[in-house]
């Protein structure tokens, strides 16, 4: 183990723990666990997906920060929208996002999610992701390198730790707004047609 690497790890973790906030101790503890363990949906939506394997494998090793991949949306906390997002992909992303369980976060990668990027005049690519899904963290670049992705994750973790990342609540509260935008580009109806009260439903044992 090299000196430099340990130093980097220490810096990153120190950065992660530096946030002090004014929460009750229960909330603090809960957010601490949430921040220390992040399951990322391994779903490559665009060209940016190519930057994710190095982020998660030996070279950059996101697992040292508690970030690891999950195969299904049911197990994931974070969905990475990696790069441009065509209508067809958007429909799948929305479906996947709605299947994830709260709390859930969206990390948008690359210029395309910010303003359309190089697909700014493309007829089948959306320009602003936040019109359709609530975004917690944008990582800029075309494409952002793994270092940037890790930094984005650490910022996201900080926000989670401070209890500030609450995009999923935003999605529930402004569900009609998002659904209207989604339907504007996806056609008449977004399947499955979850009603807004789907989120208020409390069933089961």
């Amino acid at each position, binding site marked *: 183990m090299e000196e430099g*690497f340990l130093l980097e*790890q220490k810096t990153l973790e120190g950065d992660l723990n530096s946030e002090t906030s004014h929460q009750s101790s229960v909330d603090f503890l*809960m957010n601490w*666990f*949430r921040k*220390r*363990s992040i*399951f990322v949906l*391994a779903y490559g939506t665009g060209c940016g997906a190519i930057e994710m394997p190095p982020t998660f*494998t*030996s070279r950059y*090793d996101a*697992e*040292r*920060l*508690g970030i*690891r*991949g*999950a*195969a*299904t949306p*049911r*197990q994931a*906390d974070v969905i990475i929208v990696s790069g441009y997002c065509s209508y067809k992909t958007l429909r799948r992303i929305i479906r996947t996002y709605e*299947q*994830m*369980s*709260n*709390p859930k976060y969206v990390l948008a990668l690359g210029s395309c999610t910010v303003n359309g990027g190089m697909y700014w005049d493309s007829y089948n690519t959306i320009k602003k992701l936040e019109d359709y899904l609530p975004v917690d963290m944008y990582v800029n670049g075309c494409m952002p390198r793994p270092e940037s992705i890790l930094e984005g994750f650490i910022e996201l973790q900080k926000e989670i730790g401070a209890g500030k990342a609450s995009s999923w609540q935003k999605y529930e509260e402004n569900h009609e707004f998002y659904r209207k935008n989604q339907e504007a580009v996806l056609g008449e109806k977004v399947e499955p047609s979850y009603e807004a009260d789907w989120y208020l439903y409390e*069933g*089961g*044992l």
Partner: protein
Amino acid sequence: MILLELLLMLLVAYGVGFLYYGLYRNITARFQRRFGPPLWQSFFDSIKFFLKEESTSHGWMFYLGPIIMMSGAITTLFFIPFFKETTNFSGLSSYGNLFVVLYLLVLGPLGNALGVGTGGNPFGAMGVTRGLSRLFALELPFYIAVIAIMSLSGSADISEIAAHQSTMYALAYPLLFIGALFSFIGMMGQSPFDVVGAPVEVYSGPASEFSGKFLALLMSQSAIYTFAKLVLMVNLFLGGAQGFLELLLKTFVLFLFVISFGSLYGRFKTPQSIDFLLKVPTTIAVIGLILATWS
């Protein structure tokens, strides 16, 4: 008194199980030249899943899946004595025997398989089918070895088998041990027999529909099962243990071997693993059985 002991057993298994999982992730990381996560990362993961705001359910049988699995894990644990030649930490093992434990080891997964089936996810059912297809091939060498051991010890009682070994069976009957070890690698869900939950092929298999607290329960039971299986293996082949230190040492050595083996090999397809298990380890175990009981 017995209740306190059972509680302690559970706590030890829970803690040590998660510790071993952390070690597993760290050691695999080192094999892959990575830094690896913190030691208690798996524990954090499971707590986080318990703290998720919500999870999706598919009806009451879906609830029962993970619950049966957890109950199965804890029951199995209670029927395996931790130490030999003492009644401390022997749990309920005097009321059961090895056959009970062998079947309890499967009860949890079968219960869970029902939950998976209720979830309605075809990938889950696919994973379960792969698991069950692999299961019998996996169990055969283990059964052969265990049967030979029972016959040699003249008892089906686990603590008696542990106490019966003047030299450990692993050294006295190496072929039996090798045969059983192949099965054990599969039982611990390690490569090359880990086709059940292959995330890239079957969408994480049986767990593909479980979220939130369901998943947390599955992670916790996996830690307990891991420890229970390790203790069982130590009792059967490695001569049992007389104190916590010995137990931890022996289980850790076994665990280290299993995960090293697992991180070095690729994954078999289901028919391949069945084929391999029915040919190589079974033959080894049968030869071991014949040699061990010839006289």
